[in-house]
């Protein structure tokens, strides 16, 4: 695994603004079902949104990623931090990606996923465990590529799905792959 050192070194300090904690939207809110708009990573409102996403992720127990549509903004931007999760192998710490897309995906594995926007259900979802993603960092707008594995790869696919207007419910493996959540974080 090759870590992208630029992304791994990124912190929210680069944003230069304080993030606000926003309310998380729950399904069936329409904003979760429509593809987000491409964003300008250098625009002040997008930089503020990046900071708000991280602030909201930080105060939400167990939250390892949050997409803009989950705070009611239909825009292709999300934050990720899987560094403390038990299923994580390699990771890039905390970062925000704008206009991200999957470039390569392989080695599908099935695992149970939950989502802050669907708080009472979990589902078994097959996702690639080796993933190459291309996106832009906020503020500078520089394009970066990340090669992710294991849980970070799953998290990136889940967040990119949000930016495409998809929930994990759209990818559950079958009729017995949807579960009532038994324990809450």
């Amino acid at each position: 695994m090759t870590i992208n050192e630029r992304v791994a070194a990124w912190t929210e300090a680069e944003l230069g603004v304080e993030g606000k904690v926003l309310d998380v939207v729950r399904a069936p809110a329409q904003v979760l079902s429509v593809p987000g708009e491409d964003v300008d990573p250098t625009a002040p409102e997008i930089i503020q949104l990046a900071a708000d996403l991280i602030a909201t992720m930080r105060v939400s127990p167990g939250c390892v990623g949050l997409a803009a549509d989950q705070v009611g903004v239909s825009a292709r931007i999300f934050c990720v931090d899987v560094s403390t999760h038990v299923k994580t192998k390699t990771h890039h710490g905390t970062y925000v990606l704008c206009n991200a897309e999957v470039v390569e995906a392989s080695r599908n594995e099935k695992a149970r996923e939950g989502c802050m926007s669907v708080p009472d259900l979990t589902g078994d979802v097959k996702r690639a465990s080796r993933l190459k993603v291309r996106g832009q960092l906020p503020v500078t707008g520089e394009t970066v590529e990340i090669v992710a594995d294991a849980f970070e790869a799953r998290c990136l696919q889940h967040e990119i799905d949000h930016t495409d207007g998809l929930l994990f419910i759209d990818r559950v493996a079958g009729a017995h792959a949807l579960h009532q959540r038994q324990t809450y974080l």
Partner: protein
Amino acid sequence: MTIHAITVLGHDRPGIIADTTARLAGLGLNLEDSTMTRLRGHFAMTLLCAGEATTEAIRADLEPIASDGTLTVTVYELPEEQAATGAGRLFVLSVHGGDRPGIVSTVTAEIAAAGGNITDLTTRLSGDLYVVVAELELPADADVAVLESAIRRVTQELGVDATLRPIEADDL
């Protein structure tokens, strides 16, 4: 050898499965296929059992399970029939959106119109969110794109979202 379909439905409590299956085993019945789940606090199971016991004998043996009035038990003998051949293509359909009457009936009508057979279906209500996940088999000559656009049309009218995906089986 006959096959009996047995359903047990009612208020959930520990021991329903153990009690029911012990009685069936005592009658020499083999549990061939079953589904058991809890729906909003109610336990529901459907069992297909093979054996020599008569319908009357099974009903009599299971009668004590329903005696306190919290469970309903039904027993039917099934006719002999061949299992479906399964020559079609398999798909998963996910539907989710705001709860309202008619989501399942509307969407499944489109699948039926395309000659599709639903083999498994689960619904969940979570707050305002209603979710349907169905596994279905489409005839080999069915036009998937036409079915997809029909589903898209009716789900838009219902104000819900739907995704139809092929089931990929990995042979190892």
